[in-house]
């Protein structure tokens, strides 16, 4: 029953769950959730150093850099140029820390603040530029199959459609588009990785995405903002495994009418009424 690893470019991962580090009430809680989730890859954002933390603490003081591969994002960027600059800045920091995450980026080029939906044109431009600079680009995008295909053709290491808007907790709103994305990306290249990024609200959303045939799920808010984050982190780990195994096992077809599970022969003779 052993599964093959998830291969994202030069990165080979046993866990198919990627978790974010944002929105935690404390660094202790974050650490605990990262541990429980079983994830090997964790996302971070690049922001101005403001010495926000009065004690001068930095998130990097709370992350075991020998254990986790950091995936820096370009969240907060609304044009290709800014996203490219942020990607370079993230790489610079991770190179200095000798973390294997220095060679990749989670590209987000957003269209507006209300939806946080990606700007597909700018995302494509940034993907092309970053691929040229040697980045392995993991691309946050919509569930539009044509855009997904264009991003793959531009050299994206993984295409990562949103199940629903970031942080919305609505789950996978359009499974048919996700199915078409999977077909278009994997049709002639079955090992090409597609990850559901954003929108997950609960463990069943993760299991559902994995059952559709997605290679992994990336989430943050669903754990960090749960009432009991560590319990949810564990649920997400199990859901990811369960969904993956269910997908690999091959589900039964859906039928309109019942099919008995118990033998239909050898039943005792019916009582007369």
């Amino acid at each position, binding site marked *: 029953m052993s599964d093959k690893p998830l291969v994202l470019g030069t990165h080979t991962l046993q866990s198919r769950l990627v978790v*974010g*580090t*944002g*929105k*935690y009430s404390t660094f202790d809680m*974050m650490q605990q959730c990262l541990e429980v989730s079983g994830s090997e890859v964790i*996302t*971070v*954002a*690049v*922001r*101005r*150093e*403001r*010495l926000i933390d009065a004690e*001068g603490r*930095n*998130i*990097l003081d709370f992350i075991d850099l020998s254990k986790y591969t*950091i995936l*820096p*994002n370009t*969240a907060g960027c609304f044009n290709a140029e800014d996203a490219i*600059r*942020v990607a*370079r*800045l*993230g790489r*610079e*920091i991770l190179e*200095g*820390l000798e973390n294997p995450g220095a060679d990749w980026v989670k590209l987000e080029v957003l269209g507006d603040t209300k939806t946080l939906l990606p700007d597909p044109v700018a995302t494509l431009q940034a993907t092309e530029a970053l691929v040229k600079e040697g980045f392995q680009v993991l691309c946050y995008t919509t569930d539009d199959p044509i855009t997904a295909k264009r991003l793959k053709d531009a050299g994206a290491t993984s295409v990562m459609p949103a199940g629903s808007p*970031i*942080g919305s907790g609505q789950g996978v709103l359009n499974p048919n588009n996700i199915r078409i994305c999977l077909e278009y990306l994997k049709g002639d290249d079955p090992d090409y990785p597609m990850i559901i990024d*954003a929108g997950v609200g609960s463990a069943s959303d993760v299991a559902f995405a994995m059952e559709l045939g997605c290679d992994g799920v*990336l*989430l*943050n*808010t669903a754990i960090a903002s749960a009432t009991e984050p560590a319990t949810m982190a564990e649920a997400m780990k199990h859901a990811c495994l369960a969904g993956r195994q269910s997908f690999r096992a091959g589900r039964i077809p859906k039928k309109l009418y019942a099919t008995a599970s118990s033998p239909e022969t050898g039943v005792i003779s019916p009582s007369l009424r």
Partner: protein
Amino acid sequence: MQITVNDEAREVAAGSTIADLLVELGMRPKFVAVERNLELIPRARHAECELVENDKLEVVTLVGGG
């Protein structure tokens, strides 16, 4: 001379380098990346990169994010 760090005006001594500035700001060089006038200055060049009047710097680090 005056420079701008993350949109805040700041006085630094003439001849200061990026490395000097990071020390002055009390930042751990390993945890930050620096852009000068929209151009990334790799850590290896911080000690030799002298600041010039009106330079605009971005000093960033990693924070929690999804």
